[in-house]
């Protein structure tokens, strides 16, 4: 990589990043990020290798992505692309990070759609599904361990699980009802005060 001599601080202006460069980097991340956890690959590529963002700004992009619908990987790509090159940058980053997976899944669909393929590939996919259950459980176990705290959090996790798996309420109902209750439980309590600086706010996320 020609980035070896890059300065240790983030670039002063990000506007000199070309769309082609954005496309190339996100395509690379989209094609190599096996095993889930695309966010870690994004951090490695955008912060460590390209130095387009520092850790503080990357964490901000991650926390915006977490709150919104859509996948973290694609949400971060959109936010990062926008900050680098505006709307065109966002669209380029989104297409590039999605393209390898799209081609992979289309080919998988062509193979799986062959007559008899569902039967012959079924055994291998049953093994994959079992391992995937373990992987997804581990991913969410780690996220939960890091971000859950207090009695209220336990109540909201349990309410969402019970709502869907026991009371069969459906995802939209649970999302709206439990989501609203959770937001109200964590409603702003203090009287309006001078806005915290971005740095303080980001540190408070840790």
């Amino acid at each position, binding site marked *: 990589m020609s980035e070896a001599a890059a300065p240790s601080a983030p670039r002063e202006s990000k506007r000199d990043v070309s769309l082609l460069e954005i496309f190339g980097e996100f395509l690379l991340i989209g094609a190599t990020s096996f*095993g889930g956890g695309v966010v870690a690959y994004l951090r490695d590529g955008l912060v460590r290798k390209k130095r387009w963002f520092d850790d503080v700004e990357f964490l901000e992009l991650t926390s915006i992505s977490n709150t919104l619908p859509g996948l973290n990987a694609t949400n971060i790509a959109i936010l990062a692309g926008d900050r680098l090159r505006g709307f065109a940058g966002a669209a380029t980053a989104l297409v590039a990070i999605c393209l390898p997976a799209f081609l992979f899944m289309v080919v998988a669909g062509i193979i799986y759609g062959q007559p008899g393929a569902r039967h012959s590939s079924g055994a291998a996919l049953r093994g994959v599904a079992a391992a995937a259950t373990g992987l997804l459980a581990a991913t969410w176990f780690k996220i939960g361990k890091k971000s859950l705290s207090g009695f209220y959090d336990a109540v909201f996790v349990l309410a969402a699980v019970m709502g869907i798996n026991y009371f069969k309420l459906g995802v939209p109902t649970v999302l709206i009802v439990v989501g609203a209750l959770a937001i109200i439980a964590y409603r702003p309590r203090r009287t309006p005060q001078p806005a915290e600086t971005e740095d303080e706010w980001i540190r408070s996320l840790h």
Partner: protein
Amino acid sequence: MDQIPALIRVFGYLSFLTIGGGMAAFPEMKVQIVDVHHWLSAEELTHVYSTGQMSPGPNMMMVAEVGQLVSRFPGALVCALAFFVPTGFLTFGVGRAWKKLEKWPWRASIQRGLGPVAIGLAVAGLITFGKTAVTGWLTFALGLITFFAVVYTKLNPVLFILGGAVVGYFALR
């Protein structure tokens, strides 16, 4: 081809349920794909979702395989667009308004409150998924080994996913 409008509707709708990640939407995805539209059986959906775990990039691109199976390439394309573009515009807009939202006290409340709800929805999705994926002692063992390996080692999880494919190929037919 006549399924294209339904694919767009369903995947556009599902994309807005993916708070914190794709797993949150899985129970509703199962309802729509298996029960309402009969595009796939429950086992086929589990297979397709699992295939997504082997893919690089966003694993939820498995929606394109659903589209491919239902309406070939046009189906794959509209599923991917319906799933990633509308929420993409939302993210784009919120991203630009983020600095202004800083002074809005409810921003922190929404972030703080949706955290545990997203985790709860993911766990609920995982339970729904696991019910079809874990069918006996061998699948249970595969899941358990992968869980501990991912939590306690630095090995790339895709190794265990591929290992699961090999074990499944020989032992789960």
